[in-house]
């Protein structure tokens, strides 16, 4: 059973964000582990919520990605999406400080 989450870029910050639905109320988090996972059946609900957020100018270009549920949380299936979730795989200049992301 394929699992998916919805992801997009936040309009204002440009940061990567994932859709979380809390009793139908959508919010966007920069932490993939807090994304609402759905299987094929529930995807429509996520999709409409994501598109609504785009209409509301909260996010840009939402789309669905495949994920695994692991004991370490939600992991994207492709390298590209893993990098989007975790940040650059190299140390940023400034003495190897990788800043942690806050939830949106």
């Amino acid at each position: 059973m394929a699992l998916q989450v919805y992801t997009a870029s936040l309009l204002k910050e440009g940061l990567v964000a994932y859709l979380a639905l809390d009793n139908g109320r959508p919010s966007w988090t920069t932490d993939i582990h807090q994304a609402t996972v759905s299987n094929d059946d529930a995807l429509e609900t996520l999709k409409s919520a994501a598109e609504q957020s785009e209409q509301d100018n909260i996010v840009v270009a939402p789309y669905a990605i495949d994920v695994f549920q692991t004991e370490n949380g939600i992991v994207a299936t492709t390298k590209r999406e893993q990098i989007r979730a975790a940040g650059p795989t190299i140390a940023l200049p400034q003495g190897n400080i990788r800043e942690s992301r806050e939830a949106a």
Partner: protein
Amino acid sequence: MYQYSEQDHQLLLERVSQFRGQVARRLKGELSEEEFKHQRLRNGLYLQLHAYMLRVAIPYGLLSSEQMRTLAHIARKYDKGYGHFSTRQNIQYNWPKLEDVPDILDDLAKVEMHAIQTSGNCIRNTTSDPLAGVARDEIEDPRPYCELIRQWSTFHPEFNFLPRKFKIAVSGATQDRAAVAVHDIGLRLVKSKTSDEIGFEVYVGGGLGRTPMLGKVIRAFLPKQDMLTYLEAILRVYNMLGRRDNIYKARIKILVHETGEEKFRELVEAEWEKIKAGGLYLKEEDFNWVKGFFNDPEYDILPDQDADFENLMLSNADFARWVDKNIELHKQSGYRIVYLSLKTAHQPPGDVTADQMDAIADLADKYSLGHIRTTHRQNLVLSDVQLKDLPVLWEELKALDLATPNYNHVTDIISCPGLDYCALATARSIPISQAITARFDDYDFINDLGDVSINISGCINACGHHHVANIGILGVNKKGTEVYQLTLGGSAREDAAIGKIIGPAFEADEIVDAVSKVLSVYLENREDPEETFLTAYRRLGPALFKERLYG
């Protein structure tokens, strides 16, 4: 250096105000993303893998120390404390917020900087020789011409919605340090064969990406007065006839290729005939005016030797190595050109921290008449350093990690940002550059290899210029895995050539060995230590390399 007039300033302020309005409309939803995208791109703002990316223009690679300090300030205030110098002499910031960008542009405008037309299907930053004005092999300083092109192309009302992006490079020396052969238009300053007149050899249709091509000489000698009218003619032909049905076939190189060089030339010349006497025809007064911004500084009269320098050369091997690799002779006696290598084991190629930028600005003021240049190989240049200051400058650069003695050598690697940053990428490039740098972290080896270029692109768009490297690496995605194709024999210089793929791609943990094997074949088979990698490759052909790589 060009000094902005009131009107230049006015233009920048109006542009920032215009963009501020566009951002506000976008945030309110009055402008759709589709429409806003065209506007934000023309202000250099991309939406990338992790965040927005702002590309700030550094016209023909020339910066004042004051401008460098502002770049540091922006990195600190609005970004994560660093910037990245690109393969088109610009600087990129990877983490700005959309709502901050108008403020960033305001801060830039205070020092005559901007992000105008650094993206979008318009005429981009005109790039040039980082040694302009100081090189010994210079025919004429290209920068005044670049400045004229900059003004002509900025907000050009007819050419702001071209079929695709448009890149122009100008070189003024016998050696080509601006890669003019792989630009949409490349201009090389040359002397007329029949007189002392200086004009341009005009190349059109060079480019990299999916379909790398070398530019064709459309005009062997163009008098300099005709520079802008001729450019206008080329752009007009392109605007009307360039393909708009397929973005991968929309660059002018495709138009030249599909039209045929001869026919294309006819079209340009026919259009040019009609406009060559118009308002863009350049007069002596125009050249005198613009050249006035690029006069030689008041050089001190100095001998071309210095006792302290010589003593240090003899007593300190590290200093001697740095001088050998990162110092270039200068047209003026007693002066030298200093390369600041941004290629270390400690930072991605081309990245500079805000602290480093401030320090570089101070060094420029102290030792190099207040100017810095950027290069398309993602390094920096201090162009006017006195020979006697080299010892003390070296100490300062070492402390800043900017003195790695590898300019134009094997660890002077060009790397695009790749999949770590870029939404278009198919593979990571920076980790590969770091792995190669770590593997060849031996000065004697680097020295023995001599002049050799490695360029890495993280996707087929080739922003890392891998096609024109002696050893090019292209990262692609094969069924979810990043794999790396090797090309050999490219050159971005006056002997420009597109590298050839040597064989099947390598996995990430194999590519460094592959590069190592290629270098071994060179070392084993070169005629003598003076024969460069490229010369040896051209002589030997791919066979020996292929055999070593694939058995």
